[in-house]
Every structure is written in C-alpha cells, then in structure tokens.
C-alpha cells in the first residue's frame, strides 16, 4: 500500500498550513466569534460549514432579516410556471437546531471595524473576531432614468427573490391581449449573467400559452450577453417573432422609463408597455459599503480566502465581492463560502487549511425540457480568482440532452439548498 496520506501531510498540507496564520485564539473571551451577515448562498453556507466543521469550537452568529428565504436562483422558473413560489422558500431552523448557529432575524445597520462590532436595527451590538459579509446586491441610484426603488411596484426589478418575483408574475399574467412586455437589462457586472435572458424565455413561455400575440422588447446596454447563441436559437425555435432584443449597437443602452405613464423610451423612441421589468445597474449590498470595505460598487477581496483588501478580519462572499473571473451567482457564492470557511476556521482554531478551489455552473431553462448550462473551474492567484477551464452547452443539441440538462438543474437546486439549509 502506498501511504499517500503521509506523503500528502508531509508536503502539500504542511506547506499550506505554514502559509496560514497561526491560531489566533480569542482575546479575553471564550470561543472565537464569527458574525455572518446575510443568509443566502454565501452566508448560509459559510455559517453552516464553520459550525459543522469546528464542532462547537467557534461561536457562529448568522444575521438575516427574513425568516423565510426565497432564492433568487430558480425564481425565473416560478415566472415560467415550472415552480411554485413555496418551492423557493427556505427556513433557518436546521442551521440553528442541528448546527448550533445563533440565527438572528434582524438587519445589520452598521459595522465598527475598530471595536469589531456589528450594530443591528434592533439596537443590540454583536462583537466578532472575524466577520463574513454576504449581503448580495443593491441597485445603483439613478442607473435607469426615471426609475427608483419608489417605482418598483409599477416596474419591478424582481432581482431579489420573493415578493418582487410574485409581483412581476402577476403583471405578466394581467397583460392585455397582444400587449407589450419590456425589460431594461443591466450593464456588467451583475448578479446571474444569464438571468435576464432566462427570464425573457420564461415570460415568452407564459405568454405563448396565454397571450400568444403579445410582444417582448429588451433594451440592453450590452452588445452581447451570456449564452447568447443558445438563447437566440431557443427564442427563434420556440417563440418566433415574439422577442425583440435591442443591444447597445441599436441604442439599447440609451433608455429611460416613466413608471406613471408606463412608457419606455429607447434611443428616443417612446413605447407604451403593459408590464416592465427594470433591472438596474448593481452594487454590493449596502452593509458592505457601511463597513468601509468597498471600492467603487464592489468589495475587492483576496482570492485565497475571500478576505477583503481593506481588512484581514472581514470577508466578503458572492455577488458583493470583486474577486476576478467568477460570475456573480448562487453557485459561486456557495463555492467561495467553502473556501472562506476553511480559511477562517484555520485562522481561528489552527485547523488545516487546504488550497482554494472554486467552481460554478449556471443552468438556464429556455422552454419546457430545454435546458442549457455553462460552467467553469477557478483557482486563486495573487491577483484574483482566475478561470482554469470551462464548458458551455452546444447549439443544436438533441432534445434528450436538453431534457437531461434541465433535470440536472433540478437536482442541483435540491443539492445546493440542502447544502445551504439542511
């Protein structure tokens, strides 16, 4: 028998361990304390893995305002009628009961990095040795002329899961016969690169069944988008003549909206619309900015452990981070959370720290049983998280392959939500 465990321990692991900080035990208090802000794909995962793997050695607090978390990933499938809204809701009971995480349902409203405390909207303060921020996205003020959060009832963004998703669906279903659905697509970088285009597909799917003479227009500030060839092939095959995508070359970035009049003006041409989905430019969730770890719209991080450039004891995961090549996705956040949990646990308890590996796959549904995917693996370099290898579904694939891809995406949803919450 080859004793590779010994070889491994003697070389790579030891070398890796020596690179990590020596065990930092909490000064003046008992167990080391980690506060995680945001209970989505990054935050729920990092909290769970820290608590599970440290076996009680680390005191983990998770701050998340909602008691039931509705995933943004798969919300388009709700729009398309493939999922019920309840399929997308998840609660935190298992994280508290099985893993001993202190789940606090409140908003984090301030961070004092000098005294290492987080202030909650309810007024209490949480001290930390390490803090992990996974706040997702907020929208850039004034990004789309005429639109603000005050107008999100008339023109929903539906880019955070839950009530906005339900609102948009209701508006699509209420469109008059032959009406117009408009989308204002976001500029890069933004959460879930194929998301707007999967959404177009799902809206088209619903309209084809209920309102087949309806039209969809997309004003896009970009000249190309994720899985473009796959989506455009799918739109031509399933929804011929329904989708009009206006890229930046044709003025798609020169757009304003009037939520009172329900009009969209693209490159000077005003159109009356019946439902309008405005997805503005995005930035890191507000708490990252309040914590002072952002530079511009996002929080720059070190690839090896997701610690911020601004503060070695503050980590940022997922959409809010500026890390390099990974897309902003739930899968990415979950992947980054595992690297981060391993590094934070190593720093606080002296446990072995293994080399960072990252991966991502994004599945999209174009029509019933017509699923496509794109994915890549990544590694940590000194400058960034760098892409290693990748793949994308091919155009013209047979229907069995596409059906299998969709079934796989359902398996992934069951898998990642079990990984986050179960």
């Amino acid at each position, binding site marked *: 028998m080859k004793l*590779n465990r010994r070889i491994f321990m003697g070389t790579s692991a030891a070398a890796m361990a020596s690179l990590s900080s020596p065990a930092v035990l909490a000064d003046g208090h008992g167990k080391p304390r980690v506060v995680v802000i945001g209970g989505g794909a990054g935050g729920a995962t990092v909290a769970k*893995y820290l608590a599970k793997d440290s076996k009680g050695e680390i005191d983990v607090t998770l701050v998340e305002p909602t008691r039931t978390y509705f995933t943004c990933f798969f919300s388009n499938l709700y729009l398309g009628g493939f999922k019920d809204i309840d399929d997308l809701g998840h609660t935190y009971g298992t994280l508290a009961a099985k893993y001993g995480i202190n789940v606090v349902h409140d908003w984090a409203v301030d961070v004092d990095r000098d005294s290492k405390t987080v202030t909650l909207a309810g007024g209490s303060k949480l001290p930390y040795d390490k803090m992990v921020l996974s706040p997702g996205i907020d929208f850039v003020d004034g990004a789309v002329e005429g639109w603000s959060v005050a107008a999100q009832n008339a023109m929903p963004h539906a880019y955070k899961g839950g009530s906005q998703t339900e609102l948009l669906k209701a508006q699509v279903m209420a469109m008059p016969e032959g009406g117009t659905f408009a989308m204002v697509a976001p500029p890069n970088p933004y959460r879930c690169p194929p998301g707007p285009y999967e959404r177009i597909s799902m809206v088209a799917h619903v309209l084809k069944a209920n309102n087949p003479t309806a039209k969809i227009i997309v004003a896009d500030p970009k000249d190309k988008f994720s899985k473009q060839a796959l989506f455009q092939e799918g739109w031509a095959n399933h929804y011929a003549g329904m989708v009009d995508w206006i890229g930046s070359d044709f003025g798609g970035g020169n757009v304003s909206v009037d939520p009172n009049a329900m009009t969209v003006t693209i490159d000077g041409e005003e159109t009356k619309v019946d439902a309008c989905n405005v997805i503005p430019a995005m930035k890191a969730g507000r708490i990252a900015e309040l914590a002072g770890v952002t530079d511009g719209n996002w929080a720059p991080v070190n690839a090896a452990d997701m610690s911020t450039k601004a503060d070695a004891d503050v980590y940022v995961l997922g959409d809010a981070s500026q890390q390099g090549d990974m897309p902003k996705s739930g899968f990415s956040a*979950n992947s980054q959370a595992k690297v981060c949990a391993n590094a934070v646990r190593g720093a606080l308890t002296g446990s072995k720290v293994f080399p960072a590996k990252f991966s991502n796959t994004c599945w999209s549904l174009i029509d019933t049983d017509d699923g496509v995917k794109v994915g890549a693996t990544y590694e940590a370099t000194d400058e960034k998280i760098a892409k290693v290898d990748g793949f994308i579904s091919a155009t013209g694939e047979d229907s069995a392959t596409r059906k299998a891809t969709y079934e796989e995406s359902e398996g992934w949803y069951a898998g*990642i939500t079990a990984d986050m919450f179960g």
Partner: protein
Amino acid sequence: MRSAPFLKSALAASFVAGASLAEEIGDADAGEALFSQCKGCHQIGASAEDRIGPHLNGIFGRRAGAHEGFAYSKSMQRAGVDGLTWTAETLDAYIENPRALVSKTRMSFRGIKNPDDRANLMAYLRDFSDNPSNLPEAEPTARATDHDLDPEILALQGDPEYGEYLSNECLTCHQADGSAEGIPSITQWPEEDFVVAMHAYKRKLRPHPVMQMMAGRLNDEEIAALAAYFKDLD
C-alpha cells in the same frame, strides 16, 4: 445462453388493464443487451459481487433492501420492511421509474419507458434467479470494472480527511444523504468504482461536461481521497 421465455401469462393475472406494463414475451438475449445500462453499477452471473449496486443474482423473490452485506438507502430498507419483494410486477414498476416506487432510492437511473424492453430485461435477470436456471451454469457477463486504469492509481490509499474538504465542492450538487434527484448519488460507492469513474471523466471517456471539468483538475491522490471519504458517508 437462451432460456424459457418470460411469459405474458405469468404476469397478466395481476396487472391492471390499461397500465403501461411489460406485457410481451421477454427475450433474454435482447435483455442482455439492455443490461449494459445497468452494469455500471450492478453485476450478475457466476462471479458477480456487490458494487455500486447489489449483485442481481437471485433478485426474483428477494425482499427489497434485504441482501446481506449491501448498504442500502434508508428508503429501500424501509420499503423492504414494509413488505416490498421483487416480483415480475414490482420489478417492472421499479425499472420503469425507480423513484416512483422507492422515492429516495440511491439508484440513479431514469427508468425504461418501453414495456417490451422491461420484459426483455426481466427475462435476462430471471435467468440468474433460482428458477428456471441454475446460477453456477450462468456465464459471468457483467464486469462493472472494465477499465485500463494503472493499478498503482487504484492502489492509492486516499486520505478521508482531505476527501472531506474536497467533498464540499461535490456537495453543491450531489446530496450528502445520498438522495438522487436528477443528479446521481455518490455516497457508499466501493472506492475502486469511484476512482474508475472519476478517472474516466478526467480522461473524457465519460461524456458529462460538468464532471469532466470537475474531475479534470483533481489529481490521483485527490480522487483517492474523495473515494475514501464518500465510501463511508451515510
């Protein structure tokens, strides 16, 4: 090898009219060809052993989840305790859609929709049950471990602790409790099968792009570590 045909009449009495069931006379030779879909996990014949799935000698009449020495999913064990026994009728339903019969089975198989194909497959399986044929006369037909992997790679002893860390990446899609819903279960596989499968992805012999990518950057020791970890995950 040819045996008594698997007769429609043996089944017909217990079947509900109009249901999609195997009704034709099964052809064991055709069934042998169909068994290629099964033999990645199941062996059958004289030298058959338990692999990813239990061996299928004597499957007819066996109580579900009751073959000694094989680690079944909890749901399969429960089905057996509840009285599920493998007969022509129950096997037909299981092969048509495994998860419809045993909801959280670890058997990652989409099922065979065509009733004739199921009848043929069962005719083949039947040859390895006590009646009508004798097991010792059966030829060894299924070899789940067909591969040309370097024996030194197979001999690597994986570090389960490292495997546990590496497994985090797998668990974004594959479930730790062995549930298989659109993505296969990878828990409790014999280490050799796990290693062979991962190297087949790494060398792009197996076709799945996500798995080719994931396996592609795992080295021999990392694959061995994952095999060592998932072997005992329950």
